[in-house]
């Protein structure tokens, strides 16, 4: 069985390494700040005992006050999983740092989130639209489109 790790325990571990990065944590997920996302991701990937080497899913949800970017991580070695989230409060130009250098799986998924939601990923080598054509106006998956 893949064990879903308790978010609060992981938040404690993260808090010891990079204090101030965890915004909230409950049993299901850990929410971190935008600025510390890359360090936390690196910590989760490289620490022995956690070893999150498999990025299962990268997606974004539009709650009208903020965008929430969700990362589902799994470790193949220890067979446990975790949900990592971050929030963007900027509606005009939301931006999050890219994790492509850690997990290559993020390549196409970040391009899709940019295409459909409009969130820019800083550090992505080729951030173009993936599913719609270049001249398409708007970001369809946002709640205020059409």
């Amino acid at each position, binding site marked *: *069985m*893949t064990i879903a790790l308790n978010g609060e325990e992981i938040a404690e571990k993260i808090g010891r390494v990079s204090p101030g990065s965890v915004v909230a944590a409950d049993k*299901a997920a850990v929410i971190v700040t935008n600025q510390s996302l890359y360090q936390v991701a690196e910590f989760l990937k490289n620490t022995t005992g956690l070893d999150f*080497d*498999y*990025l*299962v*899913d990268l*997606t974004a*949800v*539009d709650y009208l006050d903020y965008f929430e970017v*969700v990362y*589902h991580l799994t470790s*193949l070695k220890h*067979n446990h999983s975790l*949900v990592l989230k971050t929030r963007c409060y900027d509606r005009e130009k939301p931006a999050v740092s890219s994790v492509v250098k850690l*997990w*290559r*799986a993020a*390549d*196409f*998924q970040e391009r899709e989130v940019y295409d*459909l939601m409009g969130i820019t990923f800083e550090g992505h080598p080729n951030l173009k*639209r*993936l*599913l*719609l*054509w270049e001249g398409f106006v708007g970001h*369809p*998956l946002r709640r205020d*489109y059409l």
Partner: protein
Amino acid sequence: MAIRTEPFILNMGPQHPSTHGVFRLRATLDGEVVVDVEPVIGYLHRGIEKLAEGRTYTQNIPFTDRLDYLASMTNNLAYVLAVEKLAEIKIPERAEYLRVIMAEMMRIASHLMAVGFFLNDLGAMMTPVLYMWREREKLLDLFEMVCGQRLTYNYMRIGGVSHDIPEEFLPALKRFVAEMPGFIDEYDQLLAENEILLVRSKGVGVLPKDVAINSAASGPVLRASGVKWDIRRADPYSIYDRFDFDIPVGSAGDCYDRYWVRVQEMRQSVRILEQAIPQLPEGEICAEVPQLLRPSVGEVYGHIETPKGELGFYLVSDNSIAPYRFRIRPPTLINLTALKDMVIGWKVADLIITFGSIDVCLGEIDR
């Protein structure tokens, strides 16, 4: 005398005989050797994720059929499992067994197509496909007996399945399961020692183990690279923990290994069917679920092992009749991430068969 060459861009698709759907590949070639590859997708983007936010949970089940249209049963299963996890619904035993039987039959049908079209790309024009189509037609007849449709079934419901099996179904299925290993042996006899297949696919399009894990490959692509990760074993869903089956794992991660893993998985599916059919209990086929289901506020990520890889649904609910966010984790799009690494330095013909061995389905990539 040295000849100076310049690279040129060859545009393959979106309408092209060797693509598995409307997929466009911009290959930069230096002579015949591939220098760079850029996949362009989106020619079948129908906006399913946005449309699903305006329909109830049950009305979204036909949308999931049209994702990977060669394996509709497993797509349905992934979605209803996710909704049942979110709304905490318990389903009856007969429904569980029926779901497993349908899912494994679907796996055989999808792998038959995958292997057949891989051989089509190799140049064995239509012969292997038509042999495998013969078996697939038998499976499609069985599906039509149950739910009336040949391709997009809409069979699973939240809480169980929609129709019970008629009387003719089990004898016909038992006959099929008895003769299927013989047919797989027939294909093996024709193909396993085939010199053209061995020469053209051994060592071609290698995906190393660490790149496979880093690019989050899943399904036969991951297992052919040497990683023993199958969600039916690692995170069992439904009643898979009651059955005894092996997980075939390749060693080299080349095209031949991906083909070999799929053929072995067909044998294992037949094994699961042989165990599940005698154990099928009597009972109800669907739990009591309100027509307009309102799950409590929360989110869930439910995933299963489809023939193509790990299909996951991330559903966010805000206690209304429609999902707030309906996210599909497409296995084939993520398997494509490492395509560039697999084909650089090889020739155009190798590019085609490497792409064919990943076994994509455009309905799922573009959604």
